[in-house]
């Protein structure tokens, strides 16, 4: 964990020093709070932004490329692999992915691989292939090569559920300096705090970055039920059992014919 923290600090320091001050990003998110209610079926958030010269007199250097990386709350998940044992399919092997984002969207105006060279992308953790997904291997926690079967399957499964995605069309430039990014929030979106990292490139170099945040929260009844189940398990169970008895009794009263 400590090694990971050091590495992270190193990457952050490197990036902070990177962009030369010539452009500035101004962004605004359509909504900073996504409320998951009983009728929630997913939502699309829109991030608008402009590229401003900084200082005001400096020239702009289009064409620009933009990458928006949205990361959800951290989760630990286990990827399991089935194998045939004595004729039936059994989970035989598993890998734990430690503190990885429950939601990860990499949105750009064109394929991230064409925006900058592989080293830059890796250093900035841009794209699903380059994002750090640490696995517990024995007593060690580290990311593996991108072709690792567990890593590939993990990303694929998360993508199938709409939780991980990489889209090269989600960011559109309305004018050479005004852009719009569509952030999809699927129905099964995990609740928690989300970070939005906006990175501007020109000629394959990072020139400006900014960030924003949003919260996905369960509200009203859903929140109440989920909290009760987690914090007061025993009482919650008794209440559910009591509800079962009440409904059973109601039915027998309503339908009693004798």
């Amino acid at each position, binding site marked *: 964990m400590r090694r990971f923290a050091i590495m992270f600090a190193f990457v952050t320091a490197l990036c902070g020093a990177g962009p030369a001050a010539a452009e500035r990003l101004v962004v605004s998110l359509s909504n900073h709070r996504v409320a*998951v*209610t*009983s*009728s*929630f*079926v997913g939502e699309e958030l829109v991030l608008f932004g402009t590229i401003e010269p900084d200082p005001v007199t400096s020239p702009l250097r289009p064409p620009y490329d933009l990458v928006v990386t949205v990361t959800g*709350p*951290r*989760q*630990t*998940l*286990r*990827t*399991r692999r*089935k*194998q045939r044992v004595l*004729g*039936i*399919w*059994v*989970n035989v092997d*598993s890998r*734990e992915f430690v*503190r990885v984002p*429950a939601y990860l969207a990499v949105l750009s105006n064109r394929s991230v691989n064409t925006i900058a060279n592989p080293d830059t992308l890796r250093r900035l953790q841009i794209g699903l292939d380059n994002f750090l997904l640490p696995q517990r291997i024995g007593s060690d926690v580290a990311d593996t090569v991108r072709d690792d079967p*567990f890593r590939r399957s*993990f990303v*694929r*499964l*998360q993508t199938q559920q709409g939780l991980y995605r990489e889209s090269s069309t989600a960011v559109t430039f309305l004018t050479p300096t005004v852009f719009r990014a569509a952030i999809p929030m699927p*129905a*099964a979106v*995990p609740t928690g705090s989300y970070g939005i990292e906006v990175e501007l490139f020109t000629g394959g170099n990072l020139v400006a970055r900014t960030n924003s945040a949003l919260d996905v929260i369960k509200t009203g*009844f*859903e*929140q109440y*039920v*989920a909290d009760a*189940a*987690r914090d007061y*398990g*025993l009482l*919650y*169970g*008794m*209440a*559910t*059992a009591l*509800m*079962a*008895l009440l*409904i*059973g*009794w*109601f*039915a*027998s009263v309503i*339908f*009693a014919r*004798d």
Partner: protein
Amino acid sequence: MQIYLPIADLPVNIFLVLGMGLAVGYISGMFGIGGGFLMTPLLIFVGISPAVAVATVSSHIAASSFTGALSYWRKRALDIALALMLLSSGIVGTATGVWLFTELRALDQLDLMIGVSYVTLLTIVGAMMIYESVRAILRTRHGMPATLRRPGSHTWLHGLPFKLRFKRSKIYVSAIPVWAIGFVIGFVGAIMGIGGGFLLVPMLIYFLRVPTATVIGTSMVLTLVTMASATVMHAATNHLVDAVLALILMVGGVIGAQFGARTGQKMRGERLRLLLGLLVFAVGCRFAYELVVKPDDLYSLRYVRSG
């Protein structure tokens, strides 16, 4: 209309779930069973995780068996003494089942355990029911009278010590098989998310010679208590009971059961047993198919913890 389930953490169509409750309720009313062995697989099929399905179905079965038990109580067709005796070990069985459920979940083998128990239990019980009911149907067709229960017939079970007399059922048996049956039903119910009615009724008839008049009512009391306690235990240890899902299922289930009971009363006993046997067997085969055939995706994800 979609509704978001707070514990299963996914939106489902409310009418689909209500319809499933009605359909399973109809079948359970028709055969006098809880229907958990149908409901749990159905919930897994619509995308609810096996663990949440098993835990939630227990509360649904508690509701439907309470309705059933009440109507048998009014007809004085249940044996409270026998039910209490079965319960004393049933609770222990349920607690053991919930404990094993938690352990297996931690080892990533819960889905396998659920699958294997479904296959073995359902195919064996289903095949036995089909065999027995087909024989009964053939016998009546050939004009031979069905073999009646001989009151004096004894098995080795009747030679065991700690004998007890159950007045309402008019039986005099050892406490050991009664406890064993209660334990098995409680255990299997907690692991598989089934009430065990389709297992308990034949066990009570064949092993303890409980008369048909009191057998279903007594079985329902046992199912009610083991499933209500399984709900509480699953909620307290695994936090997996989805009350919203349970509520929709219960409402559908108790309504469906009323109509099912009416259909069931119009059918001949052995026909009913044959149908139930076929159904049980088919569900077992479905699970066997899933275990044996290569899955579409060899990989699967499991949530460990947040952070």
